[in-house]
């Protein structure tokens, strides 16, 4: 029988050696995500001396913004402005300011914008207080102050 001879020949020809190791590759793509929602719109109320309209006065309510972030993003709040006022009110002497607590702590009222970076963030709350001060006081009517919160 020829087969056993053949097997022997095979053995001498092929010297087994360890195979070159193989690298197995996994690939993945991460996409930045930013989800923001205004859970509670802010409501401003008049102070007892009538010169401050603010969300931390009396029955006022701060705005609550929920933020969820994956990757690295930036939150920017624009300088707050008085967007609308009743007909009898003369703008020009007012100061519009805001502060933030919760996700980012800027407790001192400022009329400038607020900017901060965020990384991975599970659902978190940012509280924004808004106030409009005018030593001359406010006439009756509806006032709207606004800041634009941008996640980018």
């Amino acid at each position, binding site marked *: 029988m020829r087969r056993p001879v053949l097997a022997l020949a095979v053995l001498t020809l*092929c010297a087994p050696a360890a195979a070159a190791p193989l690298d197995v590759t996994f690939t993945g793509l991460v996409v930045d995500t930013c989800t923001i929602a205004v859970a509670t719109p802010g409501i401003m109320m008049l102070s007892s001396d009538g010169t401050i309209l603010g969300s931390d006065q009396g029955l006022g309510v701060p705005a609550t913004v929920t933020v969820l972030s994956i990757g690295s993003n930036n939150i920017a709040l624009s300088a707050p402005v008085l967007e609308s006022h009743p007909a009898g009110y003369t703008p020009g002497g007012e100061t519009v300011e805001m502060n933030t607590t919760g996700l980012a702590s800027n407790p001192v009222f400022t009329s400038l914008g607020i900017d901060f970076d965020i990384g991975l963030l599970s659902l978190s709350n940012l509280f924004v207080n808004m106030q409009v001060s005018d030593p001359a006081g406010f006439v009756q009517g509806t006032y709207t102050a606004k800041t634009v919160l941008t996640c980018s």
Partner: protein
Amino acid sequence: MQLGPLALLAALAAAPAQACTIGVSTPGILALSGDGHTLSSANSGGIASILAISDLSLLGSTTITISDTRLDVTPPGFAAPVSYGATYSADWLLGVGHASGSLAGSPSFTVPAVLNLVVTLTLHNTVTSATGFRQGNYTTKTTVTCS
């Protein structure tokens, strides 16, 4: 399969000396978890890597070692410390032979010398970062060695 003995000898002589052939039948895909903390082929949307190991030595058993799970490509600026978790599951001889476990500590398993043996190896890679992952492409690598 009928082969003339001389032809068989020639074929074997021409083949490179090696202990096995590893073919990747399914490349692995990593997906980000809902909370953004782990990038894994075991997450929803991820796919495990499946390899077929064949042409194993007939002279004795072969040891297959899986080692060095690492992050290979990351987007610029990513420097967060990460930890790795990975699992493997190997089957041969229609499931009669089986090995599985975690990839911690470079595990290895041995398969017998059987003609036309094919080992199916399923690999999962997981990378965990407490601070999350920046936007961009990520690649992990795991090394599989036959000896």
